[in-house]
């Protein structure tokens, strides 16, 4: 998809003014994080599982070439095919040709962030092939021509009424002329419409949560069952997965599954976890005749061995964004590309360049909640700080910020001056009143106070002054 990460600040202004979005985000902040907390508490082994999950992914990354070759060997042995795509363009080309080889007119797609990353839908449409998104959230936003706003809840920014309007607009021609008001009716109508699309599709395309080297299986986790219909009904099943999805064994998968669903939605387990291994076998009454796996690099191999390597552990649960105060204020679209939240703030500059996406790692309070809930313990704030440093080194930081930082570092290294200036600032700010403990507006600070209050200095002077008093 086309990135708008460079206009992050304008995107944020839009997001903060969007009342529907703000209502959705208010729900998300309590819903996901509370359910995750409860699920983690129900499982005494949860923290030990997170440690093991981290170690498994580290081990897989350290031996990534070996496990990818092993995975390929197993897929081939069972009659499947493996395609290697160094770039997004390569992957689009391979998938386009596979679809054309089937004379495909429609492709049933199960939600895949990697497919978003390589802009697969646009490519298929250019070839005259209709990609049908089958995950309910993805289907809704496809009808509305919007990108996903969350990696596991792509339509989380929309209200029921917006969905009802969208369905009426697009389903009326199929005979659904009544505007619905209940969620279960909306789900039922989408089920009905999409069922026929599944039955008609020539190709099913899915992502993969994991590729299991031991067995040559692709592993998919969903709640709706759409991935399963996509890989069962059409004649061809194409799996699109990036290189870091490979893990060694089924036992490793069990560990990762235990942390994945709990971190993502707070469920003990998602409704469907499916392992697919090769095409339909002799005697099978259903299943695809052709099974292809497309393995995408798209810049990831270059991340190995660098200080950013840890981001490749990510299993795409979405916990970091569910717990991020910045995501919670602006939602996913503002990040401007495929991956939002702390994950996106680290991964997007890596995949499309810090020049385009340098704003994203700056959009963090470094509160550390993302790292504290990450099931594979990725030190997200540390990785965001790396990007800030690189941005600074490359002189991409705006002049005003650079000057401000230079001034601050000058003062901070001179304790006497620092104390005098902070004492002065404290007294000046006090002139504007501190009774309420915060300012709704301040001269020269409109950029800050337009969306939030500024804390007022407490009585008793600066921290340094209070500390001195306490100790004497």
């Amino acid at each position: 998809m086309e990135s708008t990460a460079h206009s992050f600040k304008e995107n944020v202004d839009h997001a903060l003014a969007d009342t529907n979005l703000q209502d959705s985000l208010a729900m998300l902040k309590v819903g996901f994080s509370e359910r995750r907390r409860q699920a983690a508490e129900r499982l005494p082994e949860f923290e030990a599982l997170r440690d093991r999950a981290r170690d498994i992914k580290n081990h897989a990354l350290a031996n990534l070439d070996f496990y990818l070759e092993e995975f390929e060997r197993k897929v081939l042995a069972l009659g499947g095919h493996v395609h290697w795509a160094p770039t997004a363009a390569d992957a689009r080309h391979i998938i386009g040709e596979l679809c054309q080889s089937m004379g495909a007119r429609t492709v049933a797609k199960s939600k895949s962030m990697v497919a978003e990353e390589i802009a697969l839908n646009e490519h298929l449409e250019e070839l005259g092939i209709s990609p049908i998104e089958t995950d309910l959230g993805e289907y809704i936003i496809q009808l509305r021509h919007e990108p996903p706003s969350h990696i596991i809840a792509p339509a989380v920014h929309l209200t029921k009424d917006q969905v009802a309007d969208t369905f009426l607009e697009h389903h009326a021609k199929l005979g659904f002329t009544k505007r619905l008001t209940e969620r279960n009716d909306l789900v039922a109508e989408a089920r009905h419409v999409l069922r026929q699309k599944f039955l008609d599709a020539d190709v099913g395309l899915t992502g993969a949560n994991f590729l299991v080297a031991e067995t040559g299986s692709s592993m998919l986790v969903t709640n709706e069952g759409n991935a399963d219909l996509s890989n069962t009904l059409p004649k061809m099943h194409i799996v699109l997965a990036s290189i870091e999805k490979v893990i060694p064994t089924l036992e490793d998968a069990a560990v990762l599954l235990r942390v994945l669903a709990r971190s993502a939605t707070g469920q003990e387990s998602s409704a469907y976890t499916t392992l697919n291994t090769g095409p339909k076998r002799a005697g099978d009454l259903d299943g695809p005749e052709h099974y292809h796996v497309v393995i995408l690099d798209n810049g990831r191999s270059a991340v190995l061995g660098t200080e950013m390597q840890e981001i490749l552990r990510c299993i795409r649960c979405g916990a970091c964004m569910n717990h991020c105060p910045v995501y919670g204020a602006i939602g996913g679209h503002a990040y401007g590309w495929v991956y939002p939240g702390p994950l996106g703030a680290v991964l997007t500059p890596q995949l499309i360049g810090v020049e385009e996406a340098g704003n994203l790692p700056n959009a963090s309070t470094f509160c550390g909640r993302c790292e504290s809930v990450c099931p594979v313990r990725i030190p997200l704030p540390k990785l965001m700080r790396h990007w800030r440093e690189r941005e600074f080194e490359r002189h991409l930081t705006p002049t005003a910020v650079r000057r401000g930082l230079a001034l601050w570092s000058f003062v901070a290294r001179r304790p006497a001056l620092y104390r005098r200036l902070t004492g002065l600032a404290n007294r000046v700010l006090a002139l504007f009143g501190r009774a309420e403990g915060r300012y709704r507006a301040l001269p020269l600070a409109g950029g800050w106070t337009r969306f939030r209050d500024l804390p007022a200095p407490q009585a008793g002077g600066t921290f340094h002054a209070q500390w001195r008093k306490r100790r004497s």
Partner: protein
Amino acid sequence: MSEARSQILNGIRRSLRRGEISGDQRQAVEARLARPPLGPIIARAQLAQPEKVALFCQWAETNNATVARVAAADVATEVVSFLARNNLPARAAIAPSPQLADYDWDSQKMLSLRRGRGEGSDQVSITGAFAGIAETGTLVMASGPDHPVTLNLLPDTHIVVIRESDIVGGYEEVWTRLRTLYGKDRMPRTVNTLTGPSRTGDIEQAMELGAHGPRRMHIVVVPG
């Protein structure tokens, strides 16, 4: 495409500052693949068999499935009565498996069964299960001529008959059973694990059942 393949694999090796892995490192990863290490043991699944079955049933109900524990002789009666209780037609697609064939379907004159794969028009399916996982109340289905995948997915209502002895503690025991039955390097084409009926939270984060797969799941647990 072999050029693309070596481009990716060599890129990985270059970044990891080494060549193709060899010697001790290769032996270590090959040994790990041959004898996969277990993850942390999940205490709640370490139970005697009767308690495992009870835990399985408890979690299955939490996952919005319904559970009935009946004698093998009463399976067909239970199925007909479940369909009647839910105002469903006494008509179902049933997996062509020898295990299911043993139940006394002929005693139910009103019940019409079609052996085969699932179709878009089926309202009800009946299948067995390869295993049940007590830890989360999850069913494990292994595809094959006797268990078409479509039966797990297309009908509105999925009835599963599972034997108590097929209920295990955790996922790891399922992997062991699969390796024993199919061979270490040969998984069934599809292994579906089902934890309750299909669901979605995609509209306003509220859970709704029956997104694409079955809306209703009824699990019949039989001794043996």
